[in-house]
Each structure stands twice: as structure tokens, then as C-alpha cells.
């Protein structure tokens, strides 16, 4: 039998994590819950590995910048970055695809390739105008 599951294309996602004991949501994931002190075990062997909750969609732009002096691995003239707040109250930093952003504007948080390293694409948040 050939296992075809490895060829299945899955939409890349960025996840928030839910504490199994109190339900608190986090991004990025911590190792101890701030609210109830539940511990997390990434392997799920000793403690729970916590539930993954897809993060994205409707969000509000809190602040932004356009950066010209980029680090190694980003071969473009400039990139825009922003911090947003999603409807569930979680916040995230990410790439901004709007060229003329305003604080407070409504955006859509999608997932895309943010960095290409040899042999590996790194996915992350791309904030764009809602469709």
C-alpha cells in the first residue's frame, strides 16, 4: 500500500492555542497558562499538547511601519509590517500588504509565505484589505 496522505495539499495555517483546563487562548503558544497555570507538553506525552485553533480573518490595524533596511534573507527595497487585533481579542504581528495603511483600518488576516529559506518556505500572517 502506498500512503498517499503525504501528497495531500493542506492550506497552511497559523494557530492560536487553547488551554485545555481554562480555555484561555494564546498566540504564540506559551508553556504555562497565564490564567490557570496549566502546563503544556509539545509532545503531548506528559501533559496535553493543547488544542490548535486556526487564527486569522477579520482584524483591526493597531500600528504599522514601512522598513527599508531589511535583514539577510529579504531581498526587496522595503516591506510593510503591522500589529493587528483579531475579533477574538488576540493580537499578532505580521506582514502588511496594504500600501497606504491607516491605524484602525479593518483588515483580513491570511496566511502566506513570509520567508523563503533553502528547501523550506516559512508561513505567517499577511494582512490585506478584506475581499
Amino acid at each position, binding site marked *: 500500500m502506498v500512503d498517499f496522505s503525504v501528497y495531500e495539499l493542506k492550506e497552511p495555517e497559523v494557530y492560536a492555542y487553547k488551554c485545555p483546563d481554562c480555555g484561555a487562548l494564546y498566540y504564540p503558544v506559551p508553556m504555562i497558562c497565564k490564567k490557570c497555570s496549566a502546563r503544556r507538553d509539545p509532545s503531548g506525552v506528559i501533559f496535553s499538547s493543547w488544542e490548535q485553533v486556526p487564527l486569522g480573518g477579520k482584524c483591526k490595524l*493597531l500600528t*504599522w511601519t514601512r*522598513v527599508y533596511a531589511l*535583514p539577510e534573507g529579504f531581498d526587496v527595497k522595503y516591506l510593510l509590517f503591522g500589529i493587528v487585533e483579531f475579533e477574538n481579542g488576540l493580537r499578532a*504581528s505580521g506582514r502588511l500588504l496594504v500600501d497606504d495603511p491607516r491605524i484602525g483600518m479593518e483588515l483580513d488576516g491570511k496566511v502566506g509565505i513570509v520567508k523563503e529559506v533553502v528547501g523550506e518556505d516559512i508561513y505567517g500572517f499577511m494582512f490585506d484589505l478584506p475581499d
Partner: protein
Amino acid sequence: MRKVAIVGIGHTVFGNLSEFELVDIMSFASGNALEDAGILKDRKIIEQVFVANVGGGIINHQTGIASSLVSRIDLEPAMAELVENGPASGSSAVKAGFAAIASGMVDVVMVTGGELMRTVTGWKGTDFVAMLTHPEAEYNYGLTLPAFAGMFTRLYMKKYGLTERDLAMVAVKDHENGAKNPYSHVEIPCTLDAIHDGENANVVNPYIAEPIRLYGACPVSDGAATLILCASDSPKMKFFTKKEPVLITGMGAATDTHCVHNRKDPLELTAVRLSAEKALEMAGLSPEDISFAELHDAFVILELAISEEVGFFEKGKAKEAIKEGVTRIDGRLPINTSGGLKSKGHPLGATGVSQIFELVKQLRGEAEEGRQVKDPEHGMAVNFGGFGNNVVTTICSKE
């Protein structure tokens, strides 16, 4: 707790020192401090060495730097360790030295901070500094410290009505002081006309991370600085007769969330406030007692924000202080008398040590012509790590 005195100081010039080795520039600053303390020949009285450095293993391909330094300047068998706390490594190393003496474990400590970053390209250097951001939620995106400073500045401008001209005024003030400091990376004074008001200002002073422009950020520098500390109740104080000792009267540090986006109010630099509160409490002082300060202006916006967070000015009011000249060398509360990171430069591991070096110079009355504060009693240094996620505050006082 025993009282801790600073009995010797040393510094290299800050700038491009890429023709030298990392441990050589550290050795040079250390040698200067041994001479300043008058113990070059009696250097073996140093029992413990703390070294502050961030990039040795990453960009200079060298580890075990504290052991290497001790051996290069013939300080064996002194104990030696490396302290790494990003851009606040220098003050953290001083804090380790302070604690080692205050606890009674040792009497004499040498703290040397140094960084050699200009040996790699700007690209690689930017990547190296950005490594202290959150690997998954920040670093992967290409987010850097200038990016966070840009986003912080935009919010600050919106909330408090700060203008780009106000920021340019901070840079002009820092360069004015830096031009008189022989250790400065950028020794040339700059004018408001050149970097903001004039016709060519946009060319001379382009955006690097909007709304931050080139003159709103510090240069990438190499350099090293050293302090020698001694318990003021130790019989070994008899070795240090050359200079008046300066006391470390307060030290405090605090941390904040690794991810900037996880701070409730992104304009609050909680770790700055808490570290300063702790240092002031230890010294038994209030912000009004501070005569002058070195504040971590890796971006000039931080000079304003830190000066408010430690209690010198109300929130949003530091820009009035800069307009009224309050923070100039002849003002009521001179800030960044050394030129700050903006003009003096910012070799990560050296910066915190260099800030305290400046406190000692001012308190001794040894600052160069035109940048000596008049009769200072207490100086404060705030060393800002990460984008405010690990901050160390030091207060030094005349004995």
C-alpha cells in the same frame, strides 16, 4: 548589603574597529580601566571578571570570551563569566558584579563589555540583532528592532502629537554632546536645517522604518568599555587612591513580554518603569533627585519615552522638555551627555558599561570641555534590552 564603589573606568573609541579582534578591543578598554584605577601592576587583586557580549559566538566565531579576556591581560586565576542580555548585556554584567560584591563573595570585580559587529555586512548585522525577537511570531517575518521602534513611534505620535521635527531636535542635541566626546562614533554635529528643515533634508535623512528616519536611529558600532568595582568597606580600597570613588547606589531590572504585540498598551514600557522604581528605591531617591541621565536612545523616540517612564516628565511631555532645552547640557536635567547611543554609538555588549562610564566621568567632574554637567550629585543610566523586554537601571552617586 555592602556598598559598592566604582574605582576605575576604561573605554575604547566607538566606531569601525573591524581591523581588530573582539578580545583585543575588550583588552584595550580593560587596560585603560586598570590604569585609571592605578592597579595595572597590582591587577591580580581582581578576583572576578564579568564580560558582556552578544555576538561573539554568532558573528565573531568565538566562544569562551571571558576566559580568553582574562588570559590575554594576565588576570588568571580570577573567576570569569560571560553575561548575555541582548542590548542590555552591559548593565546586566555590572549588576552581576555589583551583586557579587554586595553579597560578600568577593571584594574586587572587573566588568568589561564589548562588541565587534562591523566585521559583517549590514544585512547580516541587522539579522543578528533581530535574533532576539520571537523566533516564530516576529523574527520569521523580517521584523527588526527598527521595525518595532517605527510602530512604537507611530502610536506615540498619534497619541501625544509628537512630530518628526521634535525627534530631529533630540538627534541634534545628542550630536551636539557627542561631538565633544572623544569616544564618539559620529563626532560631527548636525543641524536641524540639515536633517529636517532644509531643502535636502529628505535626502540627507531618509526613512529607515517609517516614521523613523536615519537620524532617529543609532549607528552600528564596535567598541568596548570597562568598570572596576570594589567593596567600599574592603581593606583593598587602599589600592585605589588615584581617583575619587563613585558609588553605585541603586540597581534594578525587570522583564516584559517577549512578543511586543502581547503588551496590553503597546506604548507602556513597563520594564523601564519597574527597573527604575527598584533602582530609585534602593538608592532612597526620587526622580527629582537625579542630576543627569544616560537613556538608551538606540532610537531617539526611546530617549523621550524612557524619560517619561522613569518619572522625569509626565507622559507625552518630554517633547516640551526638548523644545525648552531642559535636557541640554546646560538645562535642568541633561540627558545623554555622552551623545547617547545616537551619536556615541551602540556596540551592544559595551553600551550598558559605557553608560555607567559616563555617569562616573560626570560625577568625577572629568567630562570634556562643554559637556560637563554642573555639580552633579546623582546620575541614572537606563539600558534597554530587546524592544523593552529586559531593562536594567543603574544609579551612581558621589560618595
